[in-house]
């Protein structure tokens, strides 16, 4: 198994080697290797049940593969808890929006700042001095995200009542608030109309170019993937069947078979 060589001499941010994950004998991912380069937009595609979401779950420490190694920033990663993955700079969004329904847009995005806030109970109780300064500094950061995502008008609305497209946007904002090095997006455009998809694509591209955030995304809309991604990895039945630039992947016979054959 060869690992794709570095493109443009970009450093490898994350690499998975021979990763296998199974649930009670059912293999969700079998022997997959691929890497994500710093600053790129990497797409993971494949038919339903191909193991895409499991892949993300492995990357952010929610599932622990039975075999294989994960290397993060050149260091081999041990079995870790999701919150440790978060602390090391991996953020994500979810296929079915997983916002904190009882909170406002603002609080949801503030929630993404949890790791950036440190002040202890004493100051929190008084809500003065350092705790307040910290709160305000983070609020400012969050406001910049709100501005970036153009959601100022829903700032103080509870997220539960927002339309789906806006919820997805808030969720992106929440992940952005973590200032991650690697951002995992699980079908960021599922269930959106054309206009919303265009907006979301623009945000993803801007996010990548303005802040240099590395992005790995799962997406079904091939048009979107081809427009956004620098490189694409294709999974089918838990196995990698192609890896390369959008153009390469599109012309791969195996990919065509997987999509047409399965009748996707």
């Amino acid at each position: 198994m060869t690992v794709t060589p570095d493109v443009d001499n970009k450093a490898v941010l994350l690499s998975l080697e021979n990763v296998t994950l199974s649930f009670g004998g059912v293999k969700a991912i079998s022997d997959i290797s691929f890497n994500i380069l710093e600053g790129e937009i990497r797409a993971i595609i494949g038919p339903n049940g191909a193991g895409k979401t499991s892949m993300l779950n492995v990357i952010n420490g929610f599932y622990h593969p039975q075999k294989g190694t994960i290397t993060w920033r050149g260091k081999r990663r041990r079995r870790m808890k999701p919150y440790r993955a978060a602390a090391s700079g991996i953020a994500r969004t979810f296929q079915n929006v997983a916002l904190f329904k009882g909170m406002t847009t603002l609080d949801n995005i503030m929630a993404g700042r949890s790791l950036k806030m440190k002040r202890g109970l004493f100051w929190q109780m008084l809500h003065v001095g350092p705790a307040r300064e910290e709160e305000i500094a983070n609020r400012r950061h969050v406001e910049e995200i709100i501005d970036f995502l153009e959601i100022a008008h829903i700032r103080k609305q509870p997220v539960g009542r927002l339309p789906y497209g806006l919820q997805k946007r808030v969720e992106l904002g929440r992940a952005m608030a973590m200032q991650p090095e690697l951002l995992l997006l699980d079908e960021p455009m599922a269930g959106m109309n054309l206009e919303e998809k265009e907006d979301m694509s623009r945000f993803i591209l801007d996010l990548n170019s303005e802040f240099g955030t590395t992005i790995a995304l799962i997406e079904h809309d091939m048009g979107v993937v081809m427009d956004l991604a620098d490189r694409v990895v294709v999974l089918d039945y838990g196995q990698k069947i192609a890896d390369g630039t959008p153009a390469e992947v599109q012309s791969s016979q195996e990919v065509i078979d997987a999509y047409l054959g399965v009748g996707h």
Partner: protein
Amino acid sequence: MQELIHSLTVAPFMEMGQYPDFLIQVVWEGFVAGILYALIALGFVLIYKASGVFNFAQGIMVVFSALVLIGLHEAGMPAWIALIATIGVMGILAMGIERFVLRKLVNQHDAILLMATIGLTLVLKGAGQLFFGGETKSMISDELGFSSGAYDWEVFDGLVIFQHIDIAAAVIAVLMVIALSLFFSKTRIGRALRAVADDHQAALSVGISLNQIWAIVWFASGIVALVTGIMWGARSDVSFALEIIALKALAVLILGGFTSIAGAIVGGLLVGIGEKLFEVYWGPIFGGGVEAWFAYVLALIFLLFRPQGLFGERIIERV
């Protein structure tokens, strides 16, 4: 220190070996208590299985049904008529609960349904005290035909006493479980009830509405409660303290799982026998009264190692 370890680990077992007749007696007592726990737990399971409602009021239903029975008898009804009338009351109660509580709360969060049954507990408790008084009463066991005698068994140079009522309780419990099993597997309604636990649509195709099913399971668990109440009342007294004891059924459920009838029985016996043994052989070391918390602590410890219960399957969390 050494003494303490000794009294915790060695002494109880030595005692058991020394007086096996006493041990048998203790286990039997625990077994009967366990059956009663199991019966209460069975009421929970019936309702939980069919409607997903965690019925906190099961305990008070036991007390309430027993009070109704005694109350009706005191009002002049012959025992058997009173029994049938009580079954009628439990039926009306079940329909009322379905009509005025469950139907209005359909599709609500589990916790809300739980709390509704806590509210129901208060209502039944208040109503029970209002109509029948708050004082302790004794069950009309003689009138219902239970003999108060005992069967003595001489064994290991000692005497083990089996109260007739306890034997009756065990037998009735067994009969009841058999009846319920037959009901579930052989009757149309029973099959519908089982189906509803898995798939609401499937149940509907049998031609019974969800509302009817709820009323039926509440009625069924009402009858279970009545039987429990009679047995319990015959063994001791009918009082509202029973409600607190009934909470132990929750611990039973944790051991046995929320949806398994077999689990409820095994769990009930485990708790019943376990707490009696613990109380008798280890209780004195702690100063007694450990029965009050043994079931819960057992459940808690159990949960830490096997959160899904004895018969549950491991759940894979999905993102």
